[in-house]
């Protein structure tokens, strides 16, 4: 009865096995559902409900509590601009404005093509490198409004399959919160966190 691919179902079983109670798997399974369809649909939530043996209403109750479960069509690239206190002090609002202006996509919305979604975010833990922006939760620190415009242009043009934090930091970033040491090649392939157990990371050779 599942709408999910066999590999996704296999992963769902593995994830459920990690927890003493099925319901605990709701959050990772919601990410799986997003990875499956690009955003969280009613079908996706019903599927999660079946896996966790709770009602769809209970799933939606959880899903709608957290900001990272996107229940509307979301772009291939989700640009989150931090405008919390530390970023705001150093121009986060201006960066946000530049992203909205350059992309033509206001907060909380997605362009027609389904390429870009834009949102403002509360603190993303990059205060030492403020202002900071994330693309599919991959971080860029020390962003200026001009660099933010360049980032939007680049995403539209280059359309990277994998969004890589080191690459973007190199191209569009400035001061960082702390030294990152050796670069990673892993990155995100959709508007959800790139994390191996959720099947959302694309590895190109590893570290």
């Amino acid at each position, binding site marked *: 009865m599942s709408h999910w691919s066999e590999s996704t179902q296999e992963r769902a079983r593995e994830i459920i096995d990690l927890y003493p109670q099925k319901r605990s798997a709701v959050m990772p399974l919601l990410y799986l559902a997003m990875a499956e369809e690009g955003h969280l649909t009613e079908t996706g939530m019903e599927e999660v409900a079946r896996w966790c043996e709770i009602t769809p*209403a209970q799933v939606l109750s959880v899903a709608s509590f957290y900001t990272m479960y996107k229940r509307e069509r979301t772009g291939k690239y989700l640009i989150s601009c931090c405008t919390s206190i530390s970023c705001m002090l150093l121009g986060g609002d201006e960066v946000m404005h530049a992203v909205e202006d350059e992309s033509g996509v206001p907060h909380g919305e997605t362009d027609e093509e389904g390429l870009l979604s834009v949102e403002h975010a509360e603190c993303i833990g990059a205060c030492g490198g403020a202002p900071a922006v994330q693309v599919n939760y991959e971080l860029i620190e020390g962003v200026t409004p001009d660099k933010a415009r360049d980032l939007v242009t680049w995403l539209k043009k280059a359309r990277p399959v994998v969004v890589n934090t080191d690459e973007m930091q190199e191209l569009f970033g400035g001061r960082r919160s702390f030294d990152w040491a050796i670069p990673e090649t892993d990155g995100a392939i959709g508007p959800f966190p790139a994390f191996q157990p959720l099947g959302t990371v694309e590895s190109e050779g590893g570290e």
Partner: protein
Amino acid sequence: MTSGQPEFVTITIDGREHQVLSGEMLITAAEDSGTYIPRFCWHPRMTPVGMCRVCIVEVDTGRGPALIPACMNPVSDGMVVATQSDVTKKAQEAVLEFLLANHPLDCPVCDKGGECPLQDQALSHGPGESRFVEIKRNYEKPIPISDLVLLDRERCILCDRCTRFSREISGDPLIEFFDRGNKTQVNTFPDHPFASYFSGNTVQLCPVGALTAGPYRFRARPWDLLKVVSSSLFDTAHPRIEVHASQNEIVRYTGVDNDATNHGWLSDKARFGFEYIHSEDRLGAPLVRRKGVYEATDWAEAIDVAADRLGLIRDESGGDALAVIGGAHGTNEDAYALSKFARVALGTNNVDCRLGDSLSSHFLAGTVDRATIGQLDDADTILVWGPDLKEEHPTLYLRVRRAAQELGAELVVVHPRATGLDDVAFRKLTYRPGEGFDLVQALDDGRYPDVIEALDADNVVALIGIASHADGPHVAEAVAALVRARRGRSDLLPLNSRANTYGALDMGLAPDLLPGRVGVSQEGVGRLRDHWGEVPSVPGRDTAGILEGLISGEIRGLLLVGADPVRDFPIPALAEEALEAAEWVVAIDLFITDSTRHAEVILPAETFTEKEGTVTNVEGRVQKLNNIRPGPGQTRPDWAMLDDLAHRIGAPLGLSSAEAISKEISTVAPAYVGVSWDLLEWEARDGVVVPLEGESQLAHIPVAVATDGKRENGLSLHVARTMYDDGVRLRHSPSLSRLALGPVVLVNPLDATALDAVPGDSLRLVTVSGEGRFEMVVDEGTPAGTVYVPFNQPGATALGIDSAVEAEVADA
């Protein structure tokens, strides 16, 4: 507290010392001591959540004053509580101002206005002004969240009462909080409505007007309502209700909190089942058939016509040629009158309030180790072997769910398919309809050691009934014998359908019973002689026997009292044929039904809101019903019509009022000695469980019946009742009648595949008793090999009681 002795502690509230029960929550301890602490989210029947924050008070437990929610903090010795301090007042006023900030204040058009805790507590504990000048939250409103309940999210104060109820009381969490923070709202999942049998409770629970009930919306102002306490006859536990009327019209029932039965909860059937009372189809005058057409007439003529023929038959063929079916939907007083009428006026024991789908009369009425509902709370093990309680016994369902979920009882559920309690059961057994005996045998043989171990607990309560029409009454007796043979103490609760069956049996509405749990015998009859004179001492026929007698002509005349065997008897074709064959049928009813249309005379009856009397619930609890309005037209109480009929027949019953009958019952019926209206109206408002003293006269001890399990090849048919069906009262209650399932058959996906059928296909089902077409619903809750047909659905053909069934996809 191990000793069972209550311990008291001393707390100080606003400078006064009080002795309160140790461990009690501060909010109730304060209330019992005369100090009201405001509350919204707190509810005595649900887990405290401490969310609304209006009950916060300044409390010092020795570490300096702190603000704590009174609903979540138990009292402790030496606690000093300040409900009037500046800090407490500031906090409580702030909460009320915050709650009102986004509240629409549309009280003039709100159903809750006038009985609204938010209004009341804004007055008593609020700041008296609002300084909120920003734009309020805005939502589309109202939105229907179920067929019966509408939601206005702007009024909602997010107290978690409705959501908590669905989660922890009714067990169908279909309404939830969505989003978070200031955007938090209550709602349902898209296209998954709050399809709960208990949804109406959320309307009563709601401390504002956010949840309103379709059948009541905008129909009355609370201060105009007339109210009486009564009991619902849509539930065998007889949950206590308040009947609310506006301008002589019943506009709603509300649940009354009592420890004995329903804790204040009601099923939606019990809550909204009042529209039939005002149905335009209700009979308001006696009808006599003339030249094939019913004509309204006056009582004198109707009584003459009805009684003369009954008298004639009795004189020509004797009492055995007459019979009575029904009486399970009325009061005990009416049932007593009917019982006396049958024996004294008609001279027959052919009388039955059951319709061929019940346990044996002696098992129902004579189980001496009968459990009370309250015993469920202390049970170590609860066995439910019988109907799906959620469908047929909603109050028991809630109580068993609570015992299993909250109170630690081990629940064993046995039923041919999924039931509403499976999720809280520690063991669920299914069996194919008709093979109940095999399962009893298997248990006895030790095939399910965990179940047997559970049944060997110290304190076992077994709820036993007929799970499937194919089971018949004897599987239940075998189950009872099995339970009783185990090690510990076991108490049984035999289940009956139709609300006052138990009361009717206690009044003798069975072929082998006399009032007060006395068997029909020389001795039993002898005891009655002083009151009833000479009556037949040989048991008569039950409903099936009566119907057969009508067909064979041995029975010529029939009195139907609030019974609809053509719809309700498991083999309707037999009932139809019998009524067709009957020479003379008289009916007492609210409506013309498929059965009463066979009557020559129909006498218009009253509903329970129109008469006084008592009823006896499934555990034997007698409670008082109260009238709130006169019946329409020329309707009369049953006892009065029966008394008139008896008079005309020439065997007066001497009945003068319902209360007088009640006194006669307490004299005549041994189990009812001491039960008076006075007692029920004053000292025992939640009722008394009979017998008050002494032993039942029947003392029925079920013994294991030899198994005669038969194996069916192919599919087995499971027929059982659902909450909403085509019953007469429901059919005339528009808000509920549309909730019936209709002609459907539920089939396991494997069987659907084997039948080459897809959902929505029409299946033709054939049994020895009938055949019909049913829309197929694929259902994983029905085991492979079993097909489930809900009984008495509008538009459905009845299939009888045999479990053998043939199924095939019907031609389009």
